[in-house]
């Protein structure tokens, strides 16, 4: 490698290991004597568990144990919890139903576990799980949130009357109503945000090992935040105290949010390992992943936008019903509230906003944060409204947006967020130019000459990353603080280990984080290793989600580096008999300014550890830690423009061009950032065109495999045209904003706006499948003919 600092397109240090099959994933772990778990799962969306007969299963070869919910509850294992308290507008706390890792009484979604089998081999465990006889009494199921909230709907949890978990609001209702009274034009839409399945490449897995001599548990698992997992498993589920529980999240193959949460299966492996006295491994298969990984999105909204006679926005009114599934997953309550409605101001000056969010239980898989988490739902709503309003009042969608942009920063929105920095005109201009927005008329005519329909759609997104100031989120109901920690450990020969509470499951931290050290000390990135994902090694951490590893995780590293640098300079000044203020670090050396005196970084590190000649009173060693608590969210923003061509005969939508102009603040590794944007855009395009978790009326997931759930593939997306515009974030030392989710947040409305432009019909829901697009194209053609 080389000295590759901030801004270098350094190749990923981790890729050799991944590409050559030398990664170390949870399923690669083998502990002598380990057994394999297989879960007995409900085939019904809603049913009473009348009895569980495991007598046949227990007689099968290799079977060690069949455990049920009664035993789990009997051992004092706690219910799964939601860690973010939301209060309804009447002040009452959210109504959380009980969620047991193995359900002894009433199952509430297809795939919910009622028992676990542990056997010598995976095949034996699965055979025995098939032989466990569960007698169910089926109950009526409710699938859609709006149906669950209707009077007379089947009650799912006794704690939540009418299936309503909370009826929450944000913003000033009276002021918003008054704004609509004055409106010259009101745009109204019903907007559906489709339910998605995360589909990380590596399914969830757990390997739990209990040492009864030391009363100590080790859990290897696919987690985005092993310390949070340990905290929750200890504090709430009473599996083991924190100092007796080590959680290791080794190489993890993707998460997209779905591996933030504590799920029943991982917890059951921990408990079962202790109960039966052997290590227990479970690896989800793809069907289990579809049925039990937390899903994303699933909103139904009504939105109204009020404009004055000059087409300036007066106010926005939103009513949303959010489907939370059968249980409240760990951060599920924050997604349709503080991660969603606080972004409803978009990039715009909106004097007043009121949003009401009702959240309902249904007999479906639990829903929680998935890449973007609330911000894609807000962006889709705002950006479809903006495009629609512009068309209704006869303005160019670009100029209508520009007219309403926030232009001065900081900008306090009416929904909590205070945007600290940005330049929306710059990213809009860059995107318009890159796609030749003004030339669309000629391109439409050319497509029409071939019998095709061409359309163009914009999306000007702003999102909130770097979650978040601990005091702020605490005041909004979060059960944890959202700081990050780092420790920089300089070894005696000058190599460096950075221990971080962030967790890499595809993000490339081993490369980007090393670039910070390379930049600071002029060291080769190969002299740096990044340690993460082990609660016994890393001091503490809140993990990786919400695009926080840069803005929060790297800020903690910077703070620790500041301390290391200060101490190293003190040592160097002492050794070279110079003033501390004259020491400069350059190219791996500490130099005395204006002289030829210098020491290598290695010499200084060695001096720190020999302790032979340190300044008076200085402790030996060169190791510093830091905790960083952000002062604000960060606000990545940008403009995405999608251009599509539709074949009206089949309804096929081809994305012929896609331009993304992003403002992520300071960028450490442009190649990795581009990769994040490519992936995010592809997932957003997946949501817009392809992906949908469809249930039938009985709560059976119709799209529970890749035969029916349409994942985006390479040939579904174009060669993206990317550009970045750097407006530094004033809130953190590097000026970073985050780039992990923007693509998925900003792209769906650009795609849908382009299709509705091509069709001349706005009545389109995601995913815009060929069938739907064909039907609208037929309707448009018929209308044109009449």
């Amino acid at each position, binding site marked *: 490698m080389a000295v590759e600092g901030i801004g270098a397109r350094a190749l990923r240090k981790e890729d050799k290991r991944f590409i050559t099959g030398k990664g170390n994933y949870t399923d690669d772990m083998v502990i002598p004597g380990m057994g394999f778990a297989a879960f007995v799962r409900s085939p019904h969306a809603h049913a009473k568990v009348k009895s569980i007969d495991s007598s046949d299963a227990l007689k099968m070869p290799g079977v060690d144990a069949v455990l049920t919910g009664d035993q789990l509850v009997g051992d004092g294992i706690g219910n799964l919890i939601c860690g973010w308290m939301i209060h309804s507008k009447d002040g009452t706390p959210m109504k959380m139903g009980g969620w047991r890792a193995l359900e002894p009484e009433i199952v509430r979604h297809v795939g919910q576990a009622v028992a676990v089998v542990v056997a010598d081999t995976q*095949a034996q465990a*699965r*055979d025995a799980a*098939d032989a466990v006889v569960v007698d169910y009494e089926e109950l009526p199921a409710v699938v859609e949130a709006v149906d669950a909230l209707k009077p007379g709907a089947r009650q799912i949890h006794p704690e939540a009357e009418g299936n309503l978990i909370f009826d929450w609001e944000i913003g000033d209702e009276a002021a918003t109503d008054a704004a609509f009274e004055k409106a010259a034009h009101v745009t109204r839409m019903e907007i559906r945000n489709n339910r998605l399945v995360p589909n990380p490449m590596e399914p969830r897995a757990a390997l739990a090992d209990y040492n009864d001599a030391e009363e100590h548990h080790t859990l290897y698992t696919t987690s985005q935040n092993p310390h949070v997992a340990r905290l929750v498993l200890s504090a709430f589920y009473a599996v083991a105290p924190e100092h007796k529980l080590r959680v290791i999240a080794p190489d993890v193959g993707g998460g997209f949010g779905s591996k933030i949460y504590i799920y029943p299966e991982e917890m059951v492996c921990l408990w079962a390992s202790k109960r039966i006295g052997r290590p227990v491994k479970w690896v989800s298969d793809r*069907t289990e992943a579809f049925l039990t990984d937390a899903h994303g999105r699933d909103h139904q909204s009504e939105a109204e936008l009020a404009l004055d006679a000059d087409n300036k926005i007066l106010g926005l009114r939103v009513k949303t019903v959010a489907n939370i599934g059968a249980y409240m997953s760990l951060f599920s309550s924050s997604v349709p509230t503080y991660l969603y409605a606080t972004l409803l101001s978009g990039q715009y000056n909106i004097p007043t906003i009121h949003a009401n969010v009702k959240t309902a239980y249904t007999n479906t898989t639990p829903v929680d944060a998935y890449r973007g988490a609330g911000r894609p739902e807000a962006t889709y709503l705002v950006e479809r409204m903006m495009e629609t309003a512009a068309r209704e009042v006869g303005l160019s969608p670009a100029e209508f947006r520009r007219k309403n942009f926030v232009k001065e920063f900081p900008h306090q929105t009416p929904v909590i967020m205070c945007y600290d920095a940005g330049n929306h005109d710059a990213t809009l201009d860059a995107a318009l130019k890159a796609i030749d927005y003004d030339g669309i008329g000629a391109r439409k005519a050319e497509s029409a000459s071939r019998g095709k329909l061409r359309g163009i759609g914009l999306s000007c997104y702003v999102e909130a990353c770097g979650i978040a100031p601990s005091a702020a989120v605490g005041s909004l109901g979060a059960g944890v603080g959202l700081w990050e920690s780092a420790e920089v450990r300089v070894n005696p020969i000058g190599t460096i280990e950075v221990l971080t509470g962030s967790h890499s499951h595809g993000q490339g931290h081993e490369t980007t984080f090393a670039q910070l050290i390379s930049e600071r000390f002029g060291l080769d990135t190969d002299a740096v290793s990044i340690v993460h994902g082990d609660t016994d090694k890393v001091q503490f951490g809140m993990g990786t989600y919400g695009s926080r590893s840069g803005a929060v995780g790297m800020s903690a590293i910077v703070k620790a580096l500041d301390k290391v640098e200060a101490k190293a300079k003190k040592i160097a000044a002492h050794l070279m008999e110079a003033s501390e203020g004259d020491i400069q670090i350059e190219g791996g050396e500490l130099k005395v300014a204006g002289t030829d005196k210098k020491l290598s970084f290695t010499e200084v590190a060695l001096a720190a550890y020999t302790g032979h000649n340190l300044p008076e009173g200085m402790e030996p060693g060169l190791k510093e830690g830091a905790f960083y608590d952000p002062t604000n969210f960060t606000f990545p923003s940008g403009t995405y423009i999608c251009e599509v061509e539709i074949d009206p*005969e*089949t*309804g096929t939508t081809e994305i012929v061009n896609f331009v993304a102009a992003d403002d992520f603040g300071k960028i450490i590794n442009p190649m990795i950032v581009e990769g994040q944007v490519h992936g995010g855009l592809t997932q957003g395009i997946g949501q817009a065109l*392809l992906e949908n978790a*469809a249930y039938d009326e009985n709560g059976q997931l*119709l*799209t529970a495999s*890749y*035969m*029916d*759930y*349409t*994942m985006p593939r390479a040939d579904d997306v174009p060669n993206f045209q990317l550009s970045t515009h750097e407006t530094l974030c004033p809130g953190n030392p590097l000026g970073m904003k985050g780039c992990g989710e923007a693509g998925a947040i900003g792209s769906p409305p650009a795609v849908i706006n382009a299709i509705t432009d091509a069709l001349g019909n706005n009545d389109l829901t995601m995913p815009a*499948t*060929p*069938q739907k697009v*064909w*039907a609208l194209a037929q309707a448009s053609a018929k209308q044109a003919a009449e």
Partner: protein
Amino acid sequence: MYETNYHKASSAAEAADLVSNSEDGKFLGGGQTLLPTMKQRLAAPSDLVDVTGIAEMNGIREDGGGVAIGGATTHAEVAASALVKDRLPGLASLAGGIGDPAVRHMGTIGGSVSNNDPAADYPAALVALGATVVTSKREIPAEGFFTGMFETALDDDEVVVSVRFPGASASAYSKYPNPASRYAMAGVFVAKGSDGSVKVAVTGAGQDGVFRMGDMEAALASNWSADAVAGISPAADNMLSDIHGSAAYRANLVTVMAKRAVAAA
């Protein structure tokens, strides 16, 4: 996957014997459907009899004016065959569009037609080209071979040794893929025989698997052009309907794919 016994047969007769002497044996070609089904624990054959090493079931040869393709011949071999490209370009192009490269290098024509997935591509080619399925017991005309969704005229211990395709003066296949699985939602094979007769066969769309479009055949017999079939659709009530495509949408796709196939032929 449940436990199973694996056998590798060296002749079609041996393969048939192995299957008939096992409790619940199945022939194994490329395994592109059977093995995933077994992994899903939806099939549990007691014995698998691998036919891919049988010499008489491999390869492509000239057969009259047409071609004969061994039952264990992979899709990739058919797609790449100079002989097939020359005699039946529509068949070569169909084989080159099945699944993905991994599927095409494992999956076999005999396995595909024996499974008779209603969304598989090959059945349309066999019916439109008037192929004959040569089995370990007899010869069966294609139209009598495919008897319904996942149903064929094969006995349990009968294996497809080869498929004989007569020559054609024109052939082409056009399909519209299911967005998720990329199996055909509607695949239309059009063929003009050496004697000038026209056949149009549709896969993916019909409730009973592959079927012929007589109206289109009549129209094309007098006017071999895309316009001739533009106004002809199958009855929607015989079409499959699911979350990916309603019956009406599939009926439309049959028309559009027929137009495109004729234009490409």
